[in-house]
């Protein structure tokens, strides 16, 4: 049976969901929120989503997509160009190759996995940003950002899991 045009369009749209969800989380990261702590160090929401999708659906969030999303992040946030691209690319490739390890394991294993992956990811981001800016950025903000990122991962993962179960079951 050959699928019709609409069916194929529907499939394409659903296939774009992972990348789109990362983009939406990027915009959420940009929201001005009047909480004193969040203005100095925000959780890396895009990193969480890239990790989630590369573990669960590496076929739908490819290395190229991670690279482009990193580029968008750098452009929007005024960060040195290329840093987020590299970090998200490495996270995507690394997690996609180890993705099978997390299948059929309780969620806490994935949480631990993410907490481990986020350390080098944020460290590389901090180091490269510092090197490109030409001055050491305060590590404290990065550490707060890491703690927030690790703590908030279950919430983001839950939302993404709902989206995955609802929209990507047959894709």
């Amino acid at each position, binding site marked *: 049976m050959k699928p019709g045009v609409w069916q194929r369009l529907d499939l394409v749209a659903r296939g774009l969901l992972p990348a789109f969800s990362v983009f939406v989380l990027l*915009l959420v*990261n*940009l*929201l*001005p*929120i*009047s*909480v*004193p702590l*969040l*203005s*100095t*160090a*925000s959780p890396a929401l895009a990193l969480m989503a890239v990790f989630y999708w590369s573990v669960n659906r590496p076929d739908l969030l490819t*290395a*190229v997509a991670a*690279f482009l999303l*990193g*580029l*968008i992040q*750098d*452009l*929007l*946030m*005024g*960060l*040195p*160009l*290329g*840093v987020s*691209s*590299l970090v998200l*690319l490495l996270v995507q*490739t690394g997690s996609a190759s180890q993705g099978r390890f997390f299948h059929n394991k309780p969620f806490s294993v994935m949480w631990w996995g993410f907490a481990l992956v986020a350390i080098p990811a944020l460290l590389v*981001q*901090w180091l*490269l*940003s510092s090197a*490109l*800016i030409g*001055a050491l*950025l*305060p590590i*404290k*903000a*990065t550490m*707060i*950002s890491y703690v927030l990122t690790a703590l908030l991962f279950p919430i983001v993962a839950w939302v993404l899991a709902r989206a995955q179960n609802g929209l990507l079951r047959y894709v």
Partner: protein
Amino acid sequence: MAQHGGPQQRIFSPLRTALHRFAFILLILSAFGLMLLGKADTVLIERIRAASADLVSPVMNIVSRPAASINEITDKIYNLANLYEENERLRRENQQLLAWQQAARNLSYENERLRDLASYTSPPALNLVTSRVIADMGGAYAHNVMISAGSRDGVSKGQAVLSDEGLVGRVAEAGYQASRVLLITDINSRVPVVIESSRDRAFLSGDNTNRPLLTFLTADASVAPGDRVLTSGDGGAFPSGIPIGIVSSVSENAVRVSPMFRRHQLEYLRVANYGLHGILSETRIRQSRPADNANSTGLSPEIPVGVGIVPVEPAGNAQ
């Protein structure tokens, strides 16, 4: 796909992994290429950044409204809880301000008389554009905000951005309908300042903390916590006398300034066009020549004449 792996599969599978690996290496290399390109800081990158801000600004403009109203609700609850203390504080402040108002009236009258006597030409009119903060960018790595005004509203790169309290930053890139503001706390920000009481000059250098540093302060400068810090107007980037912050701590190797604004409470900002293009526009520096005397530039004499100060319309013998 793996379950019917015929001879085709056997040939293409290694090819595909090789291709994947090649693509990965190519992407890594292009990431480093982007870093080099960004470091070269070409006009192109700036345009792309401005364009990307323009692209997301309609979405952020709408989405940031509910966020703002949630903030308003939390603010209201906080205000209700602190009503009594706040009222007391305001009463005290009001008394002080009434005294200041009297002083200001006397001074402005005196100032007017003296200006008449000295036939002083007043500085060019200030052009303010008010806009809303629609995004707070960066977090740990950069201190930027996005505002909902761009070249459409007369905003251009290098203009001063003010809150009710004082200087917040400057326009880093201006798109058509949105611009990026580099806060004075950002690590890339340098503002020439003067200590209000001692008139010592220094630079206010951001370091991505909430308390920027005073750098290039002379050894004999007298700075104490509580001193007000104003823009000095050197270099012509900003006019002199805009309040920036208060010296918060003085130690042997660092003097830190607490800015007047709090980043998480920035909501409406004003972009001020003082007609100064200063150190930010290199072509204008080349065109500009030091004027013979301060009055001929049509600017207030507090702004030192020298490198990079260019009035929008050169008056008198400035040509």
